[in-house]
């Protein structure tokens, strides 16, 4: 019996470490999202007898990828939908010689929000179903409010007009790309977000900086405890909100917390985005037990193999989330320390040229000629936003406008008018 238990534990650890290895690879490869990895993991399920081991594998990959994803987003400006807004504050810190601090902030934010969100979930488990039903009819009003607030927060009339222009252009880009089939829908956000946030930042840093400054040895976080706690609390709350507000993603929630909650400095913002990612992942998995409704690609996959988990299975899976988060955090910090030092040693212009070629080639390989067209348009909008000297988060209009149209029921009308 004891031998059987030992074997079972060894098996679980094997799947955790396998998941961590896959998560590192997928996290470091730009353009690979957890939802891209899941079909591959599910196809492995024919070789894995116990469904709970598949769930362990999926969770380990998902959690590790979420932490590691921050590394390419911050250091080479290649985001996915969940890390798009990390690019700018991360780059800023990298060019201040504090690249490691940027990574450390995302790790602290992620771990802090994970622990706090578990407390939130334990305390408020009973009200999630109620809140889900209550919020659903009003979600578009909340998002419209956020968009109006985003525009007005520029304060100066000239900049307010610029913000409205960027939200309109990125919104139109979202409508055209998310409703047409010029590029496969599961890949379309890659050129869109890489252009708006990644490529445009790289082009600007290419023209402004010739080297990545030497990275400092002082690893202390330059953020007050109060701001840190605020960022973690906002992230935990927003992460759970993303879990049950339909069609609201990580980046939309980050924008909402930035404007409505005031996530403060760029350091606080980095912590918030990372925290929302992790808290949302935890809630999405637990929501299978709480509301019987999967709220992420990973939880859909787990539901397929395990069905609705029991209370004890849920507690076990939470344990896996916590354990894997610890490992992923250490690995992210390790990579965060090594990569900026490596980047600082090489010719930055050469590196950015290579990254530009790599991004363009990858977009072409994944999304074809039309993907390049989308990349051209989205990079132009991202650059325009930077040159107008307004907040880059206005480019999130690409998702916010589409979400508003969907929830107001106006999407079919708009598509009919555009005839796409």
């Amino acid at each position, binding site marked *: 019996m004891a031998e059987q238990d030992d074997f079972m534990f060894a098996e679980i650890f094997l799947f955790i470490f396998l998941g961590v290895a896959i998560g590192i690879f997928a996290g470091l490869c730009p353009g690979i999202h957890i939802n891209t990895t899941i079909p591959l993991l599910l196809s492995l399920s024919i070789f894995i007898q116990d469904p709970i081991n598949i769930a362990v594998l999926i969770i380990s990959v998902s959690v590790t990828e979420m932490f590691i994803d921050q590394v390419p987003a911050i250091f080479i400006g290649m985001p996915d939908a969940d890390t798009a807004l990390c690019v700018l504050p991360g780059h800023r810190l990298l060019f201040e010689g504090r690249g490691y601090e940027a990574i450390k902030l995302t790790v602290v934010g992620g771990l802090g929000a994970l622990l706090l969100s578990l407390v939130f979930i334990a305390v408020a488990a009973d009200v999630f179903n109620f809140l889900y039903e209550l919020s659903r009819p009003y979600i578009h009003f909340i998002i419209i409010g956020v968009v109006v607030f985003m525009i007005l927060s520029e304060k100066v009339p000239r900049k307010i007009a610029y913000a409205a222009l960027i939200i309109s252009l990125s919104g139109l880009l979202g409508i055209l790309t998310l409703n*047409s089939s010029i590029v496969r829908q599961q890949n379309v956000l890659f050129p869109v977000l890489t252009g708006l946030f990644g490529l445009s930042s790289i082009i600007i840093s290419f023209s402004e900086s010739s080297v990545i400054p030497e990275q400092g040895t002082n690893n202390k976080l330059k953020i007050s405890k109060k701001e840190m706690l605020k960022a973690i609390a906002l992230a935990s709350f927003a992460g759970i909100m993303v879990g049950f507000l339909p069609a609201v993603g990580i980046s939309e929630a980050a924008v909402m917390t930035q404007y409505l909650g005031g996530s403060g400095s760029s350091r606080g913002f980095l912590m918030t985005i990372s925290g929302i990612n992790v808290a949302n992942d935890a809630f999405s998995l637990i929501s299978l037990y709480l509301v019987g409704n999967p709220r992420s690609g990973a939880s859909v996959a787990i539901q397929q193999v395990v069905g609705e988990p029991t209370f004890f299975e849920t507690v076990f899976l939470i344990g896996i989330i916590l354990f894997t988060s610890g490992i992923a955090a250490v690995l992210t910090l390790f990579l965060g320390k090594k990569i900026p030092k490596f980047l600082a040693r090489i010719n930055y212009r050469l590196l950015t040229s290579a990254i530009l070629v790599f991004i363009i080639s990858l977009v072409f390989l994944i999304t074809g000629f039309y993907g390049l067209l989308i990349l051209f348009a989205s990079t132009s909008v991202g650059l*325009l936003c930077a040159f107008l000297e307004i907040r880059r988060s206005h480019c999130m209009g690409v998702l916010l406008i589409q979400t508003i149209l969907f929830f107001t029921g106006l999407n079919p009308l708009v598509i009919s008018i555009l005839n796409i």
Partner: protein
Amino acid sequence: MKIKKHALIYVCLAASIAGLVLIYIAAINIQAAPVPIAEITFDMVGRSVKTAGFISYRSNHPSGHIFLTITDGDDSIIQVPLFAGFVSSFERDNRQQAITDELRRGALIEVEGLVGEYRGQLQIVPRKPDDLKILYD
């Protein structure tokens, strides 16, 4: 320097608009490929297709959504979710509030939309009123 920055802004604005126009032209010119239900596979998720089939199941959601299952008459089936926004646009476009009543079991419909996957099942999501045609009921 200021002139240079203004020039960059104009160039980026022009490039943004040109890019959007080109995407629009591409979007309106890409036609959905006609595919029989039996040939719609998971590899086609994210692509736009057009197919026809008989309604084998219909359920109405309290929020106004209608969920259809269509079949080719053999074993192949595919889900067709009509979301509330689409349903009201479809009725408005056909100037007939009861047109969705014609979407009953046995009716032959043609549907165009993006192939998607929901809870392990394939679906076609029509996006605009023209994407759904009742061939006969």
